[in-house]
């Protein structure tokens, strides 16, 4: 692949050229700064490039959606962030946003409209599902993951918060892998322990960490891969797998990474 295809266009560059992309890829703070999740960002970029969709990112102009501030009770800070972001998005006349973070997705989709920001927001699982349905990616048959056991960890902010249960599973099915469900899945899925701004502080005293409980459940399925669709879930599950000393045999991977790998990207 040539450099040209891979350089990531920003909104500012596009606008300078008088172009406007079909979709804005909202990277999110984790996707921008977290070393592990940066790989997911890259995988998704590769997919976007491969299918030839016109997209752009905000780059340095992107800032936190305010999700953790709102959930920790700081409504002022949330709204400061939201209103500033809406100004930027509206400035570029953004219509459609795709993001790999369920927290960004939820906030942009459900909480920005009341503050004046109205966009069509989709999570990358739904986006990938659409690509699969259109035959643009997936289903090569006998790919990398054929016959491997994969379990999917429902992110609360996709599942219960927004009723997205099927899209991620359909993405996994396109890999021709064996999808095994955990005891608690879909509406009864167990949180990874990081939502509601828990990511940013220590857990309250208890007798166990939530991510350990969840990891044990994931490992019980005998899966080689725990699939996630959320940066926080990924961190929590990875920590869990590490503390169980299973990191050599069990991988925690994002849906986008799985598809990218399957495509040989």
């Amino acid at each position, binding site marked *: *692949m040539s450099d040209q295809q*891979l*350089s*990531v266009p*920003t909104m500012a560059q596009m606008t300078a050229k008088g172009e406007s992309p079909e979709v804005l890829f909202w*990277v999110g*703070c984790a*996707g*921008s*700064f977290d070393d592990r999740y940066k790989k997911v960002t*890259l995988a998704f*970029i590769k997919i976007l490039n491969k299918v030839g969709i016109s997209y752009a*990112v905000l*780059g*340095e102009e*992107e*800032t*936190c959606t*305010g999700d953790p*501030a709102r*959930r*920790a*009770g*700081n*409504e*002022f*800070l949330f*709204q*400061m*962030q939201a*209103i500033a972001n809406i100004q930027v998005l509206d400035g570029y006349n953004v219509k459609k946003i795709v993001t790999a973070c369920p927290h960004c997705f*939820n906030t942009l*989709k*459900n*909480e920005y409209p*009341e503050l004046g920001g109205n966009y069509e927001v989709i999570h990358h699982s739904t986006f990938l599902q659409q690509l699969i349905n259109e035959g643009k990616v997936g289903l090569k048959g006998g790919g990398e993951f054929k016959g491997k056991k994969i379990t999917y960890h429902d992110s*609360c*902010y996709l599942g*219960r*918060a*927004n009723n997205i249960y099927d899209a991620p599973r359909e993405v996994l099915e396109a890999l021709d892998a064996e999808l095994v469900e955990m005891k608690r899945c879909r509406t009864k*899925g*167990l*949180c990874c*322990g990081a*939502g*509601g*701004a*828990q990511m*940013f*502080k*220590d*857990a*309250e*005293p*208890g007798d*166990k*960490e*939530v991510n350990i*409980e969840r990891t044990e459940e994931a490992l019980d399925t005998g899966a080689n891969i725990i699939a996630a669709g959320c940066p926080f879930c990924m961190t929590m599950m990875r920590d869990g797998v590490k503390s169980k000393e299973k990191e050599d045999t069990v991988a925690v991977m994002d849906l986008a990474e799985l598809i990218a790998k399957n495509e040989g990207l």
Partner: protein
Amino acid sequence: MEFLPQIAFLIIVATASFFLYKRITRIRMNIFLGKPSGRTDRTSERWKTMLLVAFGQQKMFKRIIPAFLHFLIYAGFLVINLEVLEFVIDGLAGTHRIFAPYLGDFYTVLINVFEFLAVAVLFSCFAFLIRRNVMKIKRFSGEEMRKWPTLDANLILVIEIILMFAILTMNATDMLIQGQDDHYAQTGTFFFSSFLIPLFEGMSVSTLIFVERFAWWFHIVGILGFAIYVTYSKHLHIAMAFPNTWYSNLEEKGKIENMPVVTNEVKMMLGMPAEGSNEPPAEIARFGAKDVNDLSWVNIMNAYSCTECGRCTSQCPANMTGKKLSPRKIMMATRDRAEEVGASLAKGGKGLEDGKSLLGDYITKEEINACTSCNACVEACPINIDPLSIILEMRRYVSMEESAAPASWNGMFQNIETSFSPWKFAPTDRFNWAEDLNKESK
């Protein structure tokens, strides 16, 4: 003296109605300690939700055994109430089984149906007693379930059992009296109560009449007493489930309710035109919730509807890993506090100014801080109660009024303010990930 029973009946019904009325008025007042909610939009969706979730028991059926047992009691409750109608007419008019002559054979069928339901209720109540006290199902225990809540749950079941036995006893003795006293209408045979007949055979007619009358009075007085008791009990859900589901949150669960007052301030700070900025700012009592009056009235109604079934708590990740948080306790505490404030106000006491508050005296910061906002509790509740909304309102109070959020959250706030990310990274590094990509491709 002929009218004595009727007068007594009238007095009993009137007294019970009076107490019931007072209790309902009090609960209504307590609920409206809360702020307005604005949940009157999308009415057809609301009716549909109520029909499905409350009337149709939709969410109960996620757990099939309790759903089935509960359904029997629920159906029994709805249908047996028809019989109570006859009780009231008979009681006031001094008649006996007033519907029998009019309905003829159909009356026999009808009472047999009632008896079937009475037996079904008995069966379920015994099963529930066993589940609660012998099988020790985990979600019925827990910190907040000591003493009164546990006694309450058992009392309800025992009272229902006694009331059902009263109906069956009454029918059994009635059958024996028929033909011996012409005040007693011919009703045909009742299947289930026939099994009790051997207990009463050989008694004199006057003893039988005494037993029958006793069971009759016991049942109707029992029902009235029970109705009053219910208003002090978690059993209030039999009435509250309906409005409670009607006022359900119809938004996506992930959406946290907006605070328009903050929007105005933020817009002014950013130098943007704010809505209604020419008007004097609306009086804001408080950001977030410290006490029940800071919550919306729907939150408090939720609390009065809670059945203490613990489905929320059993799904709560914080609770199942040993943290202090229990969404059920959040609901019970809210109700207790509303009751306390209401009782104090009724006595002309200090009410909300009694030096106590929901946050602090009933619910601790440790509890609310443990919530991951995962919505498992909201999803699990069979009557669409939303404990998360109360938790988030209290977090708002702690964060904005007290500036007392946990230190690492304050750090996170600071990072967002200064680096626009919850982590302390330079905003100029935000796009560095793309460099990696270019490197990789070379």
